[in-house]
Each structure stands twice: as C-alpha cells, then as structure tokens.
C-alpha cells in the first residue's frame, strides 16, 4: 500500500501550521503502508488533546474517547477482537497525566497494542500548561514561576514495569521513526513509542531545533534485551537518546490468557451466546 491510500481528502486539520503532529501522521501512514495494513483492519483508540485528533485525519476505524482513557479502550477492543491491529494514540498529558494509571497497568497486562505518545512536553489543546514531561524551569501561565517537579520519564517507568517494547523517537527523524513504528506495530505485545514532538505554539523552549540538537539515536552497541542497560540509557538526559531501548521477548501474551481465545482467536462478535453451556451450568445449580 501507499501512504496516500490512508489520506482523507478535504479534511480540515485543526493543528497549527508547523506542528510536529503533521510529521507524526506522515510517519504513521508510511509505516502502515509499508506493512500493508488495510484501514479495515486498523483501529485507533485515542484520548483528548491535539495528538489524539490524529486518527480523524487518515483512513482508519477510530474510537476517539476521553482524555486519558485510550489505553483501556484499546485493550477492550483488542480483547474483543484479536484480529484487529490496535493503536492507542495521544499526548503526554493524556497518557502520562490523566491516564497514568492505565499506562502502569496496561504495561503489566501486555496486550498486543502499539502505544504512540506525542510528547510535546506541554498541554497543547488547553493552551500551554505544564505536562508531566515538561522540563524544570518551564514557565507557563499556570506554572508562573516555572515547573519544579521531576519530569516523568516514560521510558524508565516502562522499563521498571518490564514493558515488552520501549522506544523513543523524534518527529523530525522520518526514516528512523518509520522503522521504529514498524517494529512497534509488528511487536507481539505492548509497545511504547514516545515521540518528541515540537509544539510551535505553546512550547517555545523545546522546539524542533532544540529536539534535534538535544537528541541522538542509540548506536548498534546498545543491547535492548539488557534491562539494566536499558534503564541506564533511559535515565540519561541532555542529550536524550532515541531508538529502541528495551525489548523483552519473554513477556506472556495477553490474549492467550483470556479463556475464550484459548485455541480460537475468532472475534467475539462472530460468536453466538452459549445457551447450552449456560443450561449445563444451571443444571449444576439444581444438585449439590
């Protein structure tokens, strides 16, 4: 398939000119095209913010739910129909702020999802408050004296939770990002891709240029299966490494542990209610 096959011609995009979200959309379409994923097999669950509008701008099924809630929705979708390719997409506030608890526990559960977090280190849609990933000193109309909290480190946290796939990239690195997206999309299990994304309107500190100058890709010598090493690299800052930090092929498959899918991966919608089984169960409630 071609990236253009996902186009929705004539759509009015609500992003600011120059926003990093455009680049991420382009990366995503390219990765999907290279993997030949038909829109009919793809579902994007997203939250609320600028990033979660992404699925409105290309051809896909979409469940654009509430701020912070994309991960449990995505999990429900996957667990109802394992044949679908499911992406959970949103912003840094969405996924690490309001949705922080779902992040923790989705990683533990390890459903086969791709988790795309557009990390612009700011709340875009609500006009520029600090996000969990905002760097100390970042001044906003709400953080009038600058952020002082420890920034949330999604990679370190995911590795601490023993996530099965942990990566970071930069919206400005097209080729590398397409490659990382493809790996994440084909990874069997939960895959986090945190994406440095410039917000041209509300983040005048962490600009395209800044991200470019303050990040670099991990070299070949990085062993993504070494958890301690991955953690060590994940807590590095300025410059921030990019790439696939960690991979744990040993993590159990979520779907396989769900009773209805043991040996039968057909979607739930294709099954009839099992009234015979229920009759048997009820028969048991007549005797001891």
């Amino acid at each position, binding site marked *: 398939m071609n990236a253009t096959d996902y186009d929705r011609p004539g759509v009015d995009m609500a992003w600011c000119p120059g926003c990093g979200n455009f680049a991420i959309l382009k990366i995503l379409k390219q990765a999907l095209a290279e993997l030949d994923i038909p829109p009919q097999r793809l579902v994007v669950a997203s939250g609320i913010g600028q990033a979660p509008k992404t699925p409105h701008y290309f051809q896909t099924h979409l469940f654009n739910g509430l701020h912070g*809630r994309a991960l449990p929705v995505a999990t429900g979708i996957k667990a109802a129909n394992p044949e679908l390719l499911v992406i959970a997409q949103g912003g840094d506030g969405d996924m690490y702020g309001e949705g922080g608890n779902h992040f923790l526990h989705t990683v533990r559960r390890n459903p086969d999802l791709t988790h795309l977090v557009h990390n612009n280190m700011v709340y875009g849609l609500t006009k520029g408050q600090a996000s969990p990933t905002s760097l100390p000193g970042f001044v906003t109309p709400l953080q009038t004296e600058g952020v002082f909290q420890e920034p949330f480190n999604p990679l370190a946290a995911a590795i601490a939770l023993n996530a099965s796939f942990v990566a970071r990239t930069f919206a400005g690195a097209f080729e590398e990002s397409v490659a990382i997206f493809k790996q994440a999309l084909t990874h069997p299990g939960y895959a986090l891709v945190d994406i440095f994304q410039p917000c041209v309107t509300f983040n005048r500190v962490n600009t395209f240029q800044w991200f470019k100058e303050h990040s670099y890709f991990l070299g070949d010598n990085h062993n993504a299966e070494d958890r301690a090493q991955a953690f060590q690299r994940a807590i590095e800052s300025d410059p921030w490494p990019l790439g696939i930090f960690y991979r744990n092929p040993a993590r159990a498959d979520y779907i396989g542990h769900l009773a209805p899918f043991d040996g039968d991966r057909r979607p739930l919608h294709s099954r009839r209610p099992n009234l015979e089984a229920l009759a048997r169960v009820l028969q048991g409630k007549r005797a001891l």
Partner: protein
Amino acid sequence: MPPIREFSEDIALVIGGEAGRGIQTVEQLLTIALKLSGYHIFATKEYMSRIRGGSNSTQIRIASRPVSAGLGRIDLLLPLDQKALERLRPGLRPESVILGDAEVLSGAEDLIHIPFGQLAEQAGERRAANTVAVGVLLGLVGQGLEPLLAALEQQFADLDRSVIDANLKAARSGFEAGRNLVGEGRLALCLQPTAAVANDLFLTGSEAVAYGAIAGGCNFVSSYPMSPATGALLVLARHARECGIVVEQAEDEIAASNMALGAWYAGARALVTTSGGGFDLMTESLSLAGMTETPLVIHLGQRPGPATGLPTRTEQGDLEMALYSGHGEYPRILLAPGSHEQAFALSRQAFDLADRFQVPVIVLTDQYLLDALTNLPALDLEPLPVTGYTIETGADYRRYAIAEDGISPRGIPGRGQGLVCVDSDEHDEDGHISEDLALRIRMVDKRLRKLVAMTEAALPPELDGHPHADTLVVTWGSTCQIVREALRRLHEHDLAMLHFPQIYPLPKQTGDLLARPRHLIVVENNATGQFAGLLQRHTGRRADHRILKYDGLPFTVEELTKTLRGLLDRYRPDPMECCDECD
C-alpha cells in the same frame, strides 16, 4: 424443662457467629441439605465489614411453600458463640427457641442445650461442632440425612479422609440428637416437603444477575472488586471458560468501564459490575457511552453511602445518582429487579436494550438481594434475538446517519468494508469531530429522540391487587417481594401494589396508574425517598406517605405489615369499621 414448641409451615431460623468461624459453612450445608430434602428456602445475610471476628448472622426461612422475602421474627436461634447470643437475643419472642451448646453459651436458661462440642469430639474431630449443629437441625426437620452427608463429602473434598469421616459421624450424631428432641416432644417443626423442590435451581441474587448476563450474550466483563457487586463478577469468572467470557480485573473502575466500551465497540457484549463508589468513577464513561452511542451494561449493587458507608449492608440510595450522573444530556435506561427471577430476566434484557437502543443500561440491585439465596423451579433460557442489532457495513458507512427514530445502524470494525468512527466530541454523521452548530442540534435531537421508542418499550409496572384500589403501595427493586408478602398478610381488597422493574424511562401509563388511588405510598430502602421524587417530577403526583428505612438493613415483612396497617387505619374514614379479624 420448657414447654413443647411447635413451628409449622414457615420457620425463621437464625444462625449467628463470628466471621471466619464456620458460620458460612453451616449456612451452605444446611440450606442445600434442606433444599434437597424438598423445603423452600429463602436465606439472607447480614454481616460486618471484616474478614474475621465481629458478629454476623444468616436468616434461613424454611417453608412448605415458596418464600421470597426476609422476616423480622426469629423462631429458632442457633448462636454459635456468646456474642451472637447477646446481639440477637433482643429480637426473640417468647415463643422463640434457642438451640446451642451450653459450654460456649452462658446466661441463657431457656436454651435447649445440645453438646455440639462434645459430640464432635466423640466423632473424632473437635472442629466438627458446627457439623453437629447442622445435623441437629436436619434431625428436627425429620427428612433423611443423605443430602447432608453428600453435601459434606463435596464441601470437604479437599480435606483428609479421616476428617471427612469424622464430619460424617458428627452429622449423624447431631441428626440423632435432633430426632431425639422431636421424639422427646421438646420441639416440633411441622414442615411439608415438596419433592419437586429438590430439583429446583438454588441461586443467590448475584448468581441470578450473572446468569442473566450470560443468557443476554455477555461475553466480556471488566470490573474492579467492590462489595456487594463482586459476587456477580466471581460467578462470571467461574464460568469464563465454559461460557466463553473475557474476564478482566481492571486497575480501577475508570479502566473497567472504558474497556467495556472498547469491547462493545468491537462487537462484544460487555458488563461492568460495581457499587456506588465505583460507579462515581464510571460516570465519565457513562457520558462517553451517551455521546458515542456505544451500548453499555452496568450492574450497580447498592450499599449504604455516602463514601465508604457501610460496605456490607444494604440500601437503595443510589437511584438519583444512577439516573442523573455523567455530564451532559443523553438517554439511558434504569432497571431494578424485585426478585431472583427478575434479576435474571432484567440482567438478560439489559443487554438486549443496550444493543437495541445503543445506550447505557444500569441494573440496580442491592446487598440484600444479591446475597439472598433461594430456590426457583426454572429460568427462561429461550434464546432472545441477541444479534441483528449490528450491521455489516458498506464502504459508504456512516456511524451516525441521522435516523428517524434516533437509532443509527451500528457497525463493528472488521465486519464489512466501512470504517466505524466514533467520537466523544460532537460529530458529523461520519463520526468525525464537528463544530457545525446546526448539526449539533440535529445530533442532540437524534440522541434524545430515542427516548420515544425507549419509553414505548419500557417494561410495564406490575400491579398486584385491584386496579382501582383506594390505596396503592409503590415499590422498586428489592423491596418488591417484602411488600408483596406484607400485602398478602393484610389481605385488604382496597389495597394494591405497583412494582416498577423499570425505573427510567418511566412507562407511559405511569401517570394514569398513579392518578387513580386516593392514597399513594412509596416504600424505599433509603432516607430521602428518591423514587417518590422521581415519580413526582415525571407525573406530578406526590406520594402521600413514604415508608423509608436507612439503617443498612432491608425491610422485614412484619415491619411493613405493621406500618402499612397503621397507615390504612389512618386512611379509613371511620376507624371503627376496622376489626381485628382483618389481621
């Protein structure tokens, strides 16, 4: 030696003891053995929010005819410890009998002493005292011991053979002691067994809800444990493999309801089960279900609030919350079963209604109903049209096509060529974000228009008594059977009851039905009369009396009989007309 006590037809047995000390085993063994012996059973629980210690009790109604409500009276008290004796004694009547082991109970001169402990020791297992007690009760009833022996074999299957044997022996010696009491003429329980009852279903309210869900096609449950709603979750987990159910213990209630929405969206039939505090956290998703028109079924097991309240007790205090919470305006359906049969039926129907109208459906139960155990001849397993509400999409599919009845055909991702786009923002017919304010009006109207068909499909209230009775007693939810039995006792031809299995939308005929009677009484297990308020809002008819209770316990048949009798006496133009024989 006390005089002979005889109880017939309908006996209220209460067992009291501390948590974690076998009271639950006694209840299980006894109820199943009695039911297998052909007796009708209605057992309710009342327990503290602790795992061990405290003082809990179980009331077991043993009857010759079907029973489905709890009593206030105690005929037979079986206190397993001193605390139980002291706590429950104030509820005794002069004719009540206390059965127990004088070695663990003191200060009860009227006790019929049976040396449970000693008999257990003789059977070779000190800890089998409770088994002896169960044996005694079965002996009193006088049918065979076999059901109990079989129940013991099953209950203790994991234990050493020697322990099982000792328990069997203990049961036998208890049984003999019970027979002796009868033989000696000290106690007589005159109950008529019905052979067919042995083959009845034997269910708790939680089971009825869970089985109803399965019958309704539920194949997905995501929840976070919370009393009293966890029971239904555990039943579904137990049968997950057999019945094909995805079971997910979510990290919190927010995740639970969002997972369920994701599952419905992708074609599953999903349930969440929770209590008030958990429901609060789901109100955001309720609103999301309203906007995206994604079906959702929530089982709301009520308990006394606010906040943590009394976690293991009962109340009907969450009606208004269920009806109004979740921001914005969108239709929903509230159902509230009044019995085990209805719990099954409404839980099943909830899935049908949710799917048909693409709205959230909330099934309101409470601790009293969920924990109550009873026998039933059968449940309706005829297949409902559980499919057919979703379509296979074409390439030009539009999720929110403006439909005359408000119900746009629902597609499912992966079924058909269309793309299924749902959106929490106001959206266009394709499901994409829109700020077209004229469209906004059309979409609001479309969503609210469903209320017309929903109201037409509303389950009718159930009238018991003459449609033109002077006084009408209204119930919703679990108070139904209690009021019904109270009315039977009052047997006044000018008194009727109206039970609402559906709380919202109220069926059309509600206004007419409430306009007729001169006196309208609403019975609710809460402090503020929430259903009475709802009726007033929707029909203009104000209740003349509200009978409310909010101490964490359900009503009893006796107290309702008395309160209603008092009200009827006040309503009667000339109190002299009322004669004692009525009672």
